[in-house]
């Protein structure tokens, strides 16, 4: 089975302090550590596990520029056969639909049985997967946390729904799935793995190679744009208790009793 995984390089939330920059229009990007979007990493691991079971290859693709190559290489070090960079000046400033359009261009030029994305990105809204599927006219399922390959071009998938319940469906290939964290335990990628793929070529494709209409992507075509980042004015917010821990603990215990919390 040939699987395409769409990945994204994002600021790593656990190794950064996300703060507003001094101009107040973006996050402070100096001194940020970037890594692969956590959800996408789970998706790549899932793809690798599927191909280990049924054969095939995993390709990872991203829309970006040079800086984003490092996540492609990391996933190749993990086991993806091929990394692909979709890059072009005209892609800059694309919104989610623009990204999905660019990805569609790549998918159309190749043959993939299954396309995976992460459910969402740290700075995204869980859009690209569903949009890509609709553009390709492939069936789609989000929040997938289990995949079982069935015969004759079908998958049995489990979606995570409210209350911890699982919604089980059958879906026809080719399809697009967005993968939820916790679906598997991604394998470790060390410095050595990355060094070994350091010189593997990563092909690049631009708008013309992909047959993408310039008018459909990029900033001009974006219908949704971010204006700024801000820290919301704290609403009422919490009443912050200060003082010695002993005093605080006593106050909390009193509150618990007052509010009918203590049952012992």
């Amino acid at each position, binding site marked *: 089975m040939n699987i395409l995984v769409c990945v994204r390089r994002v600021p790593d939330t656990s190794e950064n302090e996300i703060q507003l920059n001094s101009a107040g229009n973006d996050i402070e990007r100096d001194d940020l550590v970037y890594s692969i979007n956590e959800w996408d990493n789970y998706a790549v691991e899932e793809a690798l596990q599927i191909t280990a079971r049924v054969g095939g290859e995993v390709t990872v693709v991203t829309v970006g520029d040079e800086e984003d190559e490092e996540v492609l290489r990391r996933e190749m070090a993990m086991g993806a056969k091929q990394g692909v960079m979709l890059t072009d000046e005209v892609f800059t400033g694309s919104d989610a639909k623009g990204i999905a359009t660019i990805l569609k261009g790549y998918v159309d030029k190749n043959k993939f049985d299954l396309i995976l994305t992460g459910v969402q990105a740290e700075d995204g809204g869980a859009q690209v997967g569903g949009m890509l599927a609709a*553009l390709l006219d492939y069936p789609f399922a989000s929040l997938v946390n289990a995949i079982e390959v069935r015969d004759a071009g079908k998958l049995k998938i489990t979606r995570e729904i409210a209350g911890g319940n699982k919604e089980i*469906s059958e879906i026809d290939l080719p*399809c697009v799935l967005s993968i939820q964290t916790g679906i598997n335990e991604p394998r470790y990628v060390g410095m050595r793995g990355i060094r070994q793929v350091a010189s593997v070529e990563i092909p690049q494709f631009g708008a013309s190679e992909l047959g993408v209409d310039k008018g459909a992507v990029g900033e001009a075509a974006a219908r*949704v744009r971010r204006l700024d980042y*801000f820290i919301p004015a704290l609403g009422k917010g919490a009443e912050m208790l200060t003082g010695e821990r002993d005093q605080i603990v006593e106050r909390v215990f009193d509150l618990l009793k007052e*509010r009918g*919390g*203590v049952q012992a």
Partner: protein
Amino acid sequence: MNRIFAYIEHKGGVADDSAAELIAAARKLDPSASPVAIAIGLGPELDSVCESLRAGYAEVWKIANDALAYPNAELVRQALVKVLPAGSIVLVPHTHFGLDLAPGLSIKLNAAYVPDILAIEPLAGNSLRLVRQEFGGQLSAHVTCDISTGAVISVRPGAFKPEPSAATGQIVDKSSEVGSLSARRRYLETVVAEAGEVDITKHALLVSIGRGIQEQDNVAIAEDLAQALGAAVSCSRPVVDAKWLEKSRQVGSSGKTVKPKVYMALGISGSFQHLAGLKGNPFIIAVNKNAKAPIFQVADIGIVDDILEFIPALTEKAREGAKAGAAEA
């Protein structure tokens, strides 16, 4: 402005809370708007939902179809595309279903899509200004959206407070416009999460732990506190992902929905997905090392402290309190 539609989620014949919230959202979009509720399903349950929607929505479009007995986003999308006029604005709750439906719907409607919004205001020139959160809720962002060809907007549940509405609506049956539906994704069954020995939905006080508990062995500290208070231990998603507690303990959009009287959020940052599982406006006491944790914006009481120190201190206090109580009794 174009017509505004609200997609109604429902279960067992009862409309979800989001139905009322979407009206409020629509009003923010366009104060004079009269949004249309769309309810999709089958049978008497669907009928009863439509009936209940009349109090609030001026118009309720009912779409009944055998294939739609279970809300399969692929099929729902097909149905919606058939009935929605061009350029519509569709409001959808940002739930596991909304996530599944909205992006693809926006493409098929050739409309813009803005996910998971907290606030809306109209702007001149056929656009909107909306507020979203990013980076796990650490920052908010203003976005603009060009709605000239319509928009699909998914709304964060609980972001808009329902407002009373005097409208009494009509039910319009649109089932015939839908025609036959076929999907390459077919629903099989729903597996209900195992109950486990503790049902956190039944407790009035929850001692809830998050990633700040740091390791499996520290969970015992929370159990001690829960025991001393007569409460149950619940947790946020990272604790379950790390396999420190079973899934049945998870509070959140992908876990359980709880309605306790008091909720202790210990070492929980307060991400939206977690808070989504908290209903009924409980009294929230939050303890977190990070003074900027988003939880402090929703909590009633906030304490900046190391939970690994705070919890044992509170446990001791609770035990003393229990002894004193027993002595008095």
